[in-house]
C-alpha cells in the first residue's frame, strides 16, 4: 500500500477517536457531586485564617497608587543604603541567564602571553574581573560570558599591561585614551 495513504488513514483514525464522546459513568458522577456538596466550607479563624481564601474590594486607582508608593520608597531606600554599603557591582562575569543576556565567546590567539583578560563596558573595564582561560594547547585563550543585549566596547589585556583590540571584530573609534577598542553587538540575530 502507498505509505502516504496509509499514514493518512492512521491519522484519520486517530482524529476520529478523539472526536468520539467519552463514556459517562452516571453513578460515579452523582457520587462526586454529593461528596462535594457535603464538604464543609473551611473556617477562617485562628491560624487557618491566614491561609483561607478571602474576597476583598478595592478601587484599582488606590491599588496602583499604593504600589507606586511602595516601589518608590523601596527604590529610594535601596539607593540610599546601596550607596553607603555596597557601592559597586564590579563583575557581572556570568551574568543572570535570563532573556536579556546572551552567551558570547571571546577567543584570542596570543603567543607568549601568560595572562589574558577581557575588559569592556560590561565589567567596568576591570582587568581582574574576567580572565580568559588558556585552551591548553597552542596559543588560544577563551572566555564564555553572558552579555546584555546591545552594543558593547571591549579589548583584550595581555599580561596586565598590553591592550589589544579583537582582530576578528569591528573597531570602535579611538576613545581619547590612545587605542582602539572592539565592538560587539549582542542582539540574538546573528549580530557581530
Amino acid at each position, binding site marked *: 500500500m502507498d505509505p502516504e495513504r496509509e499514514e493518512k488513514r492512521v491519522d484519520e483514525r486517530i482524529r476520529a477517536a478523539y472526536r468520539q464522546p467519552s463514556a459517562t459513568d452516571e453513578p460515579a458522577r452523582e457520587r462526586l457531586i454529593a461528596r462535594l456538596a457535603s464538604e464543609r466550607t473551611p473556617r477562617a479563624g485562628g491560624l487557618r485564617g491566614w491561609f483561607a481564601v478571602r474576597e476583598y474590594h478595592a478601587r484599582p486607582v488606590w491599588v496602583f497608587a499604593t504600589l507606586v508608593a511602595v516601589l518608590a520608597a523601596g527604590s529610594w531606600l535601596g539607593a540610599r543604603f546601596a550607596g553607603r554599603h555596597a557601592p559597586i557591582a564590579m563583575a557581572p562575569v556570568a551574568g543572570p541567564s535570563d532573556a536579556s543576556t546572551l552567551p558570547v565567546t571571546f577567543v584570542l590567539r596570543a603567543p607568549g602571553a601568560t595572562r589574558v583578560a577581557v575588559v569592556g*563596558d560590561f565589567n567596568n573595564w576591570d582587568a581582574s574581573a574576567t580572565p580568559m582561560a588558556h585552551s591548553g594547547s597552542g596559543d588560544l585563550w577563551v572566555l564564555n560570558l553572558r552579555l546584555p543585549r546591545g552594543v558593547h566596547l571591549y579589548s583584550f589585556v595581555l599580561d596586565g599591561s598590553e591592550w589589544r583590540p579583537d582582530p576578528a571584530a569591528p573597531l570602535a573609534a579611538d576613545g581619547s585614551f590612545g*587605542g582602539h*577598542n572592539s565592538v560587539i553587538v549582542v542582539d540574538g540575530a546573528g549580530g557581530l
Partner: protein
Amino acid sequence: MNRTLALCLALAVATAARADEGSDEARLNARLAPEVAHQVSTLVNEARAAGLPTDPLIARAFEGASRGADAAGIVNGVRRQSSAQASARGALGPGSQPDEIVAGASALLAGVPADSLSHLRLARAGGSLVIPLVVLCDLVARGVPADVASVAVVTAARAGATDNVLLRIRERIHTGIENGGAPAGTTGEVVRQWLRMTAGRGRHGEGPGGESKRKTP
C-alpha cells in the same frame, strides 16, 4: 483622584531618577578620585537630563582609569563621549534608539561627518542603524577615508543591503586592505561589485561572494 495618581507617578519618576543618580555616583566614587568622580558625575547628570544614554559615559571614565589616563584625560574623554552622543542623536533624529546613539557617537568620534548619519537614517528609514554605523566606524578606523566610507555604506544601505550584507562587505574590504589594497580603492571596488551583482536581481541581494542566504528574522 487624577491629581493623586499624577502625584504618585511624579513621585515615582523623581525617586527613580534620584536612585539612578545615587547609584551612578556610588559607582564612580568607588573607582575614581573624588574630584574626578564629581566632575564625571556632573556630566552624567547633564546627559541624563538631556535624555542621553549615561552608561557609556561611566564606562568611558572607567576605561580611562583602567588605561591609566590622568584626571583631566578621563574628564575630557567623558565630555567628548557625551558631546558625540548629543551630536549623534541630533543627526539621527529624536526617535533614535540608545544603541544607535552610542554607535553613532563612535562613528562621529572616528571622524565620520554628522550629515552621513542623517543620510544613513534616510536610506534606512524605520530600520535599525546599529550595524551600518558599526561598519562605517570600523571602515574609518581601518584607514578608509571618512567620506569614502560614508558614501559606500549609505549607497549600500540605499540599495537595500541588509545587516548581513554590510558585514560581508566589511569583511571583504578588511581582507582586501590586509592583502595590500588601498583602503579607499578597495572599499569602492567591493561596493561597486556588490551593486553590480544585485542590479540583475533587484534589491536585497545577499552578495558579495555569491551567497543567497537571507537573514532569518
